[in-house]
């Protein structure tokens, strides 16, 4: 069987296929090597890293809702230094794009994390997490505001040597403005969307179902809204768009690409089926062959008139 060309050129980085595992849903990557060869992935984004370890939020941290999952993990993690010592060496020989999700509780911390990572090899790009809703009360984050996003992106861009993907939040009415300001500040790509600020209540006890009260909604429930945002943003910027939100099948991937995404990230589906991404990649290959598509990348931004 001949294979179709699934590869994607993001300009700063070439991917084997458009499917990237999303940050926060793929651990540090090693959790999934028990299930499949990580080299099959277009790439993966490791769980967000701060300069120091973070304890995370108290439980309950998860609640399932209709076709969705609300999480308030609180970016628990080992910090960038331990990551570089203990985990990164296990990832450096992989033949797939290893992307690091870079976090900060203030602007300088983002730059400090990126600078530390700059000292190590085997990393394709940084994804700037300016959009996690779970780490401060009320769900605020820099990606709600074009100016705050601009400041962080330009600061990190100046101080680090690797391509930057800025990950946007859907919890703003100004997503196009935020995307444009990230582009102006030098971001090499945009990824969207992070989770939707959400909550769930136990009506019997009148208590919130999450200890953090608020969390981020992901999963198939958010796909139509996320797809709309990818479509709107992709029409307004020139840098590549990486689309995500509720992808579970190859058809979802195709929808995002047609809407304007050059590549996609798959998140919550990894929890449901640790082999979700290799299955999606196989389906994409079959799709291209059945429909005589030589290069999958040619689908990007090809929404046809009704």
């Amino acid at each position, binding site marked *: 069987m001949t294979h179709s060309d699934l590869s994607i050129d993001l300009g700063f980085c070439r991917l084997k296929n458009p499917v990237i595992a999303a940050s*926060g*849903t*793929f*651990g540090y990557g090693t*959790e*999934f090597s*028990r*299930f499949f060869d990580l080299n099959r992935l277009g790439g993966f984004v490791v*769980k967000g890293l701060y300069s120091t370890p973070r*304890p*995370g939020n*108290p*439980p*309950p*941290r*998860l*609640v*399932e809702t*209709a*076709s*969705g*999952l609300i*999480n308030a*993990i609180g970016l*628990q993690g080992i910090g960038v230094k331990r990551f570089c010592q203990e985990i990164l060496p296990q990832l450096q020989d992989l033949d797939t794009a290893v992307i690091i999700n870079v976090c900060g509780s203030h602007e300088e911390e983002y730059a400090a994390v990126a600078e530390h990572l700059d000292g190590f090899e085997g990393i394709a790009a940084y994804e700037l997490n300016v959009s996690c809703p779970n780490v401060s009360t009320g769900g605020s984050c820099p990606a709600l505001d074009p100016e705050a996003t601009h400041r962080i992106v330009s600061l990190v861009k100046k101080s680090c040597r690797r391509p930057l993907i800025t990950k946007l939040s859907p919890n703003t009415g100004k997503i196009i403005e935020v995307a444009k300001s990230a582009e102006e500040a030098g971001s090499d790509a945009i990824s969207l969307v992070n989770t939707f600020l959400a909550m769930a209540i136990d009506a019997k006890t009148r208590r919130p179902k999450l200890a953090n009260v608020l969390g981020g909604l992901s*999963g*198939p*429930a958010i796909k139509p809204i996320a797809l709309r945002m990818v479509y709107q943003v992709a029409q307004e910027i020139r840098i590549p768009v990486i689309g995500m939100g509720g992808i*579970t099948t190859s058809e979802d991937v195709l929808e995002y690409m047609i809407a304007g995404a050059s590549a996609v990230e798959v998140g*919550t589906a*990894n*929890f*449901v*089926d*640790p*082999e979700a991404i290799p299955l999606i990649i196989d389906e994409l290959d079959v799709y291209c062959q059945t429909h005589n598509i030589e290069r999958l990348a040619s689908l990007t931004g090809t929404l046809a008139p009704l």
Partner: protein
Amino acid sequence: MYSAILFRTIFGKTMRKDPQARILHKQNWGDYFILALESPRITSEAHPGQFLMVRVGETSFPLLRRPFSIHAVQDNALEIFFQTTGLGTRQLSLKQEGDRLDILGPLGRGFNLDIEGSTPKAALVGGGRGIAPLYFLSESLRLQGVSATIYYGGRTVEDLPLRKKFLAAGYPLHCSTEDGSYGFKGLITDHLIQDLKQNPADRIYACGPDGMLKRLAEISQEYSIPAELSLEAIMGCGFGACWGCVHRLKKDQEIGWQKICEDGPVFPAEMIIWEKE
């Protein structure tokens, strides 16, 4: 020290997905169910205290798999024992013999079976549906020459559907109900304390509600009996990727949120930090 089998599973090398595990038989008592699932490889690698993540439907609602501890293993099949408490378990309870289930397992770190002494004795304490892993455990302990006494508590007699199964297998069984409808009237932990005087144990193994486990951690200290407690949690993935199922634990002298799915679900009692009430 943990056994060689456990050492392997700590690193998860044996975990796998079986998308086509066939339901061989089904048993039901009120809200409680047993499903026997044919899955030769997962069965052969299972250790008591480990669990499965089971996909209960084909669609996106419910979205996540549900965790179930391994209740029993026999030949090529393993059993799960569960109570219908929500949408996921209700859907699962509707499955019939011959249906196939998508399962992941065996997951997590199970019970440490090594007990010192020439004729070691273990007290196995199950609260309600928490009895689930203790059958597999009692059968494995028997193979190691450990004599197991079962303490099985519930709110009412309806919560003790497995009492005949343990009796038929020949285990000494002590039951309690909060309403006095069967056995000792009161909490199983009080029943245990009463019985420990005549029937001392070298190890406590338990699974059940947090209140019961917390009391057993105190009993473990008071009576100087090491205890291994299996925690229950809402889980996102079951294999360490989502960080959703944490509990406060003491590990390497540090206290923090640790993953129940990967570091547990079974922990030595002294590792578990209980929240103040």
